[in-house]
């Protein structure tokens, strides 16, 4: 029922978005924790930098990624020479582009969740002998789990739709980076490709809705477990 092109685009989108969230969420959690609980000079600056991909045009972000992480980029050259890692024109590069674009959304969701954790509980944990890191891992993180989930789903949904930064950074490579949005774009540029593009659009919508539904169910289950049987 689905053409090979469509199957490949769906597979790539799901894989790339999955990796983007897997790799980006831990970083988002760390940044959210620093921004939520840290008191240091430059905190607002860090906050601003984290939000840049949200307010810059995606193509600009893609171009910046090229400058930094391309084969001749500031960091990319070292990555290639020292570690043999290439990000330009690769699946991994597409995941990085998606992760960068999704990061602000994930950080925001996680930060809100961390800030809503009762600091009295964290204080109690400290008096019981838990270091700051231990408090974070055993108290703060578990209690902000619903927010983490929301952040992950937001990040996943954003990655599914990522286009501008990806195509600028890694271009469109069949089998590696030709995700659903890029495939849809390509089809709309070809005369007579509208029908196929519409099909892929419908698939994208179904995927996004499925992700949102799954997150709703999981969030509710998590909420129930935390608050006990009295959770309404």
């Amino acid at each position: 029922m689905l053409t090979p092109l469509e199957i490949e685009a769906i597979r790539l989108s799901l894989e790339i978005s999955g990796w983007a969230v897997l790799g980006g969420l831990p970083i988002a959690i760390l940044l959210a924790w620093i921004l939520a609980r840290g008191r240091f000079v430059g905190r607002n600056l860090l906050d601003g930098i984290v939000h840049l991909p949200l307010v810059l045009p995606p193509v600009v972000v893609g171009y910046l990624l090229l400058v930094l992480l391309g084969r001749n980029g500031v960091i990319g050259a070292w990555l290639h020479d020292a570690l043999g890692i290439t990000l330009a024109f690769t699946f991994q590069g597409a995941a990085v582009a998606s992760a960068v674009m999704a990061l602000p959304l994930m950080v925001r969701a996680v930060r809100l969740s961390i800030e809503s954790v009762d600091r009295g509980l964290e204080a109690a944990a400290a008096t019981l002998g838990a270091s700051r890191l231990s408090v974070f891992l055993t108290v703060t993180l578990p209690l902000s789990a619903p927010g983490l989930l929301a952040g992950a789903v937001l990040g996943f949904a954003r990655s599914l739709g990522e286009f501008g930064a990806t195509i600028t950074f890694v271009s469109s490579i069949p089998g590696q980076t030709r995700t659903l949005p890029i495939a849809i774009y390509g089809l709309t540029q070809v005369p007579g490709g509208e029908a196929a593009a519409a099909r892929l659009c419908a698939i994208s919508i179904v995927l996004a809705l499925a992700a949102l539904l799954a997150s709703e169910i999981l969030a509710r289950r998590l909420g129930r477990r935390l608050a006990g049987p009295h959770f309404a």
Partner: protein
Amino acid sequence: MRRIAARLPVAILAVLLVLAASVTRAETSVYAAASTTDAVNEIAAAFAAKKLGLIVPSYDSSSTLAKQIEHGAPAGVFLSADEQWMDYLEQKKLIAPGTRSDLLGNALVLIAPKASSAAAVQIGPGFPLAKMLGDGRLSVGDPAHVPAGIYAKAALDKLGLWDQVKDKLAAGQNVRAALNFVERGETPLGIVYATDAIASAKVWEVGIFPEDSHPPILYPVALVAGHETPEAHAFLEFLKGSEARAVFAKYGFRPVLTN
């Protein structure tokens, strides 16, 4: 008195909007293929300097521009990098009849970054393209829809090299994106127009594709149906005039035998 003062900002806004509308009516929007960016900018400036009118150009891949015109974009003049997309609009009756002509020609070249150690080659059937690429990729406009990419595929096909490199392509949204990849050294080689290679100081021409390896690269120009203002007509004639021809030649475009 206070009520008038409260209504004043709205009144000013309304006046500004009317003024803006009347101003935009005097502008002519020109949709031109990405490869003509620098040349058309210069020609538009000359047009404005001669007080013949205000030109607002938009550049992108011809496929993107054609689609936008199809969906009602307010372009007055369309300059496409291949016949296919002009045919596309003509079939949909979106071109003003009798205004189409071939304006420019171009050549297809193989480029490398300035700092590359590649040697100049004579491009012919079976030249060692795959070896020259090594483990790198070949930057092209997307062969599915970007004219420069379509020409590149045709040429590689004709020279028997398509199978070797079809899995090693880096397909950009338009030819300028492909050029950018080579300029930044992200890919060792790329296929772009001769005009793009001339325009960029960061790449050099490794070789030129023989004219018979691809369909002739022709840039048709026409007026968009429903937007045939006097200024648009004037700009179309200006584009065909000697001053514009000189500018195009400066940027490396080939002339077309006048039809």
